[in-house]
């Protein structure tokens, strides 16, 4: 019998081995298992509840809109004008074009002086302030004003020449006061006290003092709301990649 393991056969065999290996690796790479949904029943149920809540809210909004529409249709001309005016006032209030008062908290950002020989006067930047605003919104703030500038949906907060500009006017040096309207002051205070935002301010040598207020008056937004350059953002769909 001829030896099958001669040099030629082995060389060709190794080539075949390599080909097989490469094909297998390529196959594996192209058929990687997709990430599995590892949520258990409880988590899925919670997610479902959340979605149902959103749905409920949407239904409520639709019902409200329909009610308004019905009111318009059923009323006489005079009443129609009246209810239109009401709607306009409501919308102005929502947009932040009216003064608003109520209970809430005041956040005071003050310089923190450590016992060091030399320390510059602390400064904050727009990014930190935005972070704080986001944090307040997440905690349940309804309306806000930074110093005398009302914060509305399109309020810009940015650094301009080492100054922080809110609504295109400077808010000056520290200390800075942020007035927040809310229905539940305690929750916001608790939320801010445990959140990391205080640490971020502390890194810049700034402390954050929270005080509950029974009566806060927020100024109105006094500029023209310019929506000319505002565009709808394409929100990328989440989930499957």
């Amino acid at each position, binding site marked *: 019998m001829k030896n099958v393991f001669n040099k030629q056969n082995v060389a060709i065999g190794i*080539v075949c081995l390599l080909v097989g*290996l490469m094909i297998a690796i390529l196959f594996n790479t192209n058929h990687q298992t997709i990430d599995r949904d590892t949520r258990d029943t409880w988590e899925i149920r919670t997610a479902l509840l959340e979605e149902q809540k959103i749905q409920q809210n949407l239904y409520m909004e639709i019902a409200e809109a329909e009610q308004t529409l019905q009111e318009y249709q059923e009323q006489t001309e005079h009443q129609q004008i009246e209810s239109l005016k009401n709607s306009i006032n409501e919308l102005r209030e929502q947009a932040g074009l009216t003064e608003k008062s109520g209970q809430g908290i005041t956040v005071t950002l003050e310089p923190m002086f450590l016992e060091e020989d030399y320390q510059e006067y602390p400064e904050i930047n727009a990014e930190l302030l935005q972070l704080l605003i986001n944090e307040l919104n997440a905690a349940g703030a309804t309306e806000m004003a930074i110093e005398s500038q009302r914060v509305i949906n399109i309020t810009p907060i940015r650094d301009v020449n080492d100054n922080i500009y809110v609504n295109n006017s400077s808010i000056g040096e520290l200390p800075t006061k942020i007035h927040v309207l809310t229905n539940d002051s305690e929750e916001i205070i608790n939320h801010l006290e445990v959140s990391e935002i205080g640490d971020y301010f502390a890194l810049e040598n700034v402390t954050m003092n929270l005080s509950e207020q029974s009566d806060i008056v927020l100024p109105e937004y006094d500029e023209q709301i310019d929506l000319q350059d505002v565009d709808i953002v394409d929100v990328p769909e989440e989930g499957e990649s």
Partner: protein
Amino acid sequence: MWLPALFLIIGLLLGFMTNMSIPDAYTNYLSIAVLAALDTLFGGIRAQLEAKFDQKVFISGFFFNVLLAAFLAFIGVQLGIDLYLAAIFAFGVRLFQNLAMIRRLLIEKYELYREVKKDTKS
């Protein structure tokens, strides 16, 4: 004849068992390398059937083609041209040609074999 097939199966098993995979960025290179390898393999089979098989040509062709294909893909990525398409096209065409030749040769051989059988019977 069965040794290469055995090695091919061993290679496949090895790949599947180890569950190896490469990063997505390199799939282009590997796919083109696989194509080059298959091309060389079928070329080798054809040469064998034509009785022109040369081991040196086969082995060197295998490695050279694979490396060249990967290199072409690499250059393509660097230049922003999909050069690997050129390689896929070239190898694809050659693959089909080789397969066609193999088919013809096999048919010829089969007919020859039948004729020989007939002759011996009669």
